[in-house]
C-alpha cells in the first residue's frame, strides 16, 4: 500500500485576529493538528490601539482542503475574519529579503549590477561584502537569491509574504 497525496495549489490568506496571547500558537497549531501546509506566515499589529493583528499565511492545498482551512480558521474564537485573497480576486503580494554577499573584484561589481537590475538597495557594506535589501513578489526574490548564489551569497533573511487586496475595499 502507498499513501496518496492530493494535488495542491498555492493560496494567500489574510487572517484578522484579536491580539490576545497565544493567538499565533492557535493558528500555527491548527495547521499542524489538521495536517495543513504553511509556506510562510507573517504577523503584525495593524491598529493604533494594538488590539488587532493581521496574519498573512501562504499555504498550498487542494480546493476542498482550502475551504476547510478557511472554515477552521474562522471557527477560532479570537478570529475576526478570514480572506482567501487568491480566491477573492486581484491582490498585491510583497516580501522583503536581506541578502548578504561576500566577494571582491569582478564578483563584487557583478553583485552590484544585478542588485541594480532588481532594484535592491545596499543597506550595509564592507570592503568585502554587501547586504542588499530587496522587495517584491516571491518569484522575484527567489530569482535574486538564485543569482546572488553565483556571486558569493552568504545568507538570506526573508520576511515572508504580506498581501492586501487591490481596490478600495478592505481585505
Amino acid at each position, binding site marked *: *500500500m502507498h499513501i496518496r497525496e492530493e494535488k495542491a495549489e498555492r493560496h494567500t490568506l489574510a487572517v484578522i*485576529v*484579536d491580539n490576545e*496571547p*497565544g493567538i499565533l*500558537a*492557535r493558528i500555527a*497549531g*491548527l495547521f499542524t*493538528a489538521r495536517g495543513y501546509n504553511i509556506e510562510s506566515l507573517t504577523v503584525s499589529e495593524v491598529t493604533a490601539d494594538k488590539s488587532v493583528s493581521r496574519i498573512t499565511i501562504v499555504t498550498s492545498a487542494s480546493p*476542498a482542503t482550502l*475551504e*476547510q482551512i478557511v*472554515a*477552521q480558521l*474562522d*471557527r477560532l*474564537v*479570537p*478570529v*475576526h475574519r478570514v480572506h482567501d485573497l487568491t480566491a477573492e480576486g486581484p491582490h498585491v503580494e510583497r516580501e522583503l529579503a536581506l541578502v548578504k554577499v561576500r566577494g571582491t573584484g569582478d564578483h563584487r561589481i557583478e553583485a552590484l549590477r544585478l542588485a541594480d537590475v532588481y532594484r535592491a538597495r545596499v543597506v550595509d557594506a564592507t570592503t568585502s561584502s554587501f547586504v542588499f535589501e530587496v522587495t517584491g513578489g516571491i518569484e522575484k526574490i527567489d530569482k535574486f537569491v538564485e543569482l546572488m548564489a553565483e556571486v558569493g551569497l552568504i545568507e538570506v533573511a526573508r520576511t515572508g509574504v504580506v498581501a492586501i487586496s487591490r481596490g478600495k475595499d478592505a481585505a
Partner: protein
Amino acid sequence: MVVERSGADILVEALVDLGVEVVFGYPGGAVLPIYDALFRARKIKHILVRHEQAATHAAEGYARSTGKPGVVLVTSGPGATNAITGITDAMLDSIPMVVITGQVPTHLIGSDAFQEADTVGITRHCTKHNYLVKNPALLGATIHEAFHIATSGRPGPVVIDIPKDVQVATAAYSKPGPIQHKTYRPALKADRSAIEQAVDMIAAAERPVLYTGGGVINSGPAAAQLLIELARITGAPVTSTLMGLGAYPASSPQFLGMLGMHGTYEANWAMNQADLIVNIGARFDDRVTGRLDAFAPNSRKIHVDIDRSSINKTVRIDLPIVADAGRAMEDMIRVWKSRQYAKPDLSAWWARIAEWRAKDSLAFPEDEPNGFRGEIMPQRAVRALWEATHARQPIITTEVGQHQMWAAQYFGFELPNKWLTSGGLGTMGYGLPAAIGAQLGNPNALVIDIAGEASIQMNIQELATATQYRLPVKVFILNNEYMGMVRQWQELTYESRYAESYSDSLPDFVRLAEAYGWRGIRIERPDQLDGGIADMLAYDGPVMVDCRVAKLANCFPMIPSGAAHTDMILQANEVSGTMDDEARALV
C-alpha cells in the same frame, strides 16, 4: 467604595451568578484557595471524584442529561493532564463544559515548578477555547465569557487556567450583562432562501431520508419535537447517528434505526438509494459514511449544521444551511405549511424500505450453532433490560465497545437526553462517571451504565464516588471476558489472532462491588436474566451486575472499515478473516 474580593471568591460568586449547582472536582495545591472559597460560600455542591478524568466524564453526563453546562475543578499539573481525555471527549461530542484548572503562581510559570504543566498549551487543540487568567480584575468577565462560549453555537469544552496568586489577589467583581463578544458570533438563524430551497427539494424528492444527529439534541428538547413534526408532514424516513439517538422515537414506524458501521440494513440501504439526504445536526462521520466515494452516490444533500467547518468537510453538499438544528427545522416547517405542500406520496419508497426491513438485520442467533447454546446472548440481555425498564424512561450510559453498539441497537430510545455515550472519541471508562453525573442532575431518574468488563475497569474507582453521595446508579456489565470489539476486528482482519484482547485476571465483580458498599449481583444463565434485572431494580442503592454473556458473540450488522453501505456483513459466517492493506490501514 468598591469592595474587592479574592479571585477565588470572585470565581465562586460568578459560578453562582451563572446558576451552577454542581461542580465535579478534585483538590490539590494550586486550587486550595478556590476550595476554601467553595467551602465558605456553601452555595455550590462539590462532588469529589476519585480521578480527574472521571470529573470530566461526570460533567459530560450531567450536561448531556440536563442540557446545562458541566463544570469541573481540578488542580494544576497532573490534575489538568488527567482531565485531558474527558475534555477531548467533550470536544468531539460537542458537550458544553467549563473546566477550571489551578496553575502555579504567575511568577513561577515557565520555571518547571512543582505540578506545573502548560495547561493552555496542552488544551489548545482539545477545547473550543481556553484562557490563562493573569489579571484578577479580568477573572469575573472571563468566567462569564467562558460559559457563553461553552454553551452557545456548537457547544464544547472551555478551559480557564487560574494561577494560584490570581486566586488570592483581590479585585472588584460585578455581574456582567448579556455578552456581546468582539469576534465570536455563532450563526443560529438560517438564510431564508436556503430554507425555502430545502423545503422545495424535500417536497420534490421521491426517496428522501432525514439523517439526524447530536445537533438536534444539543438544540434542546423542543428540537426533538420539531423533528417529529418535520417527519410527520414530509412522511420521510428518519435515521440517526449514535449521538442523535432519542431525538426521534425509536418506536415510530418512520424510524429506520441507527445508520453507519453498526447501523441497520434498512437505514444504510435507504441512505445508499436515497435521492435526497437531509442531514440535520450530524457531521458525516467516518463511522457513518463508510467508503466516501460510495456514500449515497445518487443523492442530493442538504446539510444543516451550526458549525460552518462541518460543511463539505468530507462529503460535498448541494445545499448548506449554517444554523441551529431546531431553528432551521422550525423555519422549514413554517415554510412547508405556508406553501401548503401536501404530504408527498412516498409509498414506492416505503415499499423498498419494507423489503430491506424484512431482512431483520438485528436478528441474532440464539440457541443456535456456534456454541451459543445455554449462554446469554448479549443482545438478549440488552433487550431484557429495555423490557424491564423502558416504562421508567431510564438514562442509559455506556462504555465503549461491543456492549455500546448493542445498547445502541437494542435499547430503544424515545426521548432526547436519555442516551449518554462517548461517540467521537470512543473513550473506554466513560460510562460509570457519566452515570454519576447524570444521576446528580436527575436525582429521581433510573440511571444505568451498560458496560463491558474491560471498559468498566478504566474508571472503576468511581464506585466510591457513587457510594459517598448515595447515588443509586446501576452498572450492568456484559461480561464476555474479552475486549470484544478488538477481538471482533481481529477475527475480521487478522484471522482470529487474539493479540492481547483477552480480559485476563478479572476481579470478582460482585465482591468488588460489595467492597465499595455497592450491591453485587451475578447473572450466569439465561433463566437468571429477568430475575437478576428485577433484583437490580428493586435495590434502592447502587448495584453492579456481572452478567456473563456469550464469549464469542459479535456485533452485526457491520460495514467493515472502508467498505460501502451496500457491503454489509449481516452474520458471522460472512466474515472472511482477512483484509487488504487499504482496509487494514483504516480505523
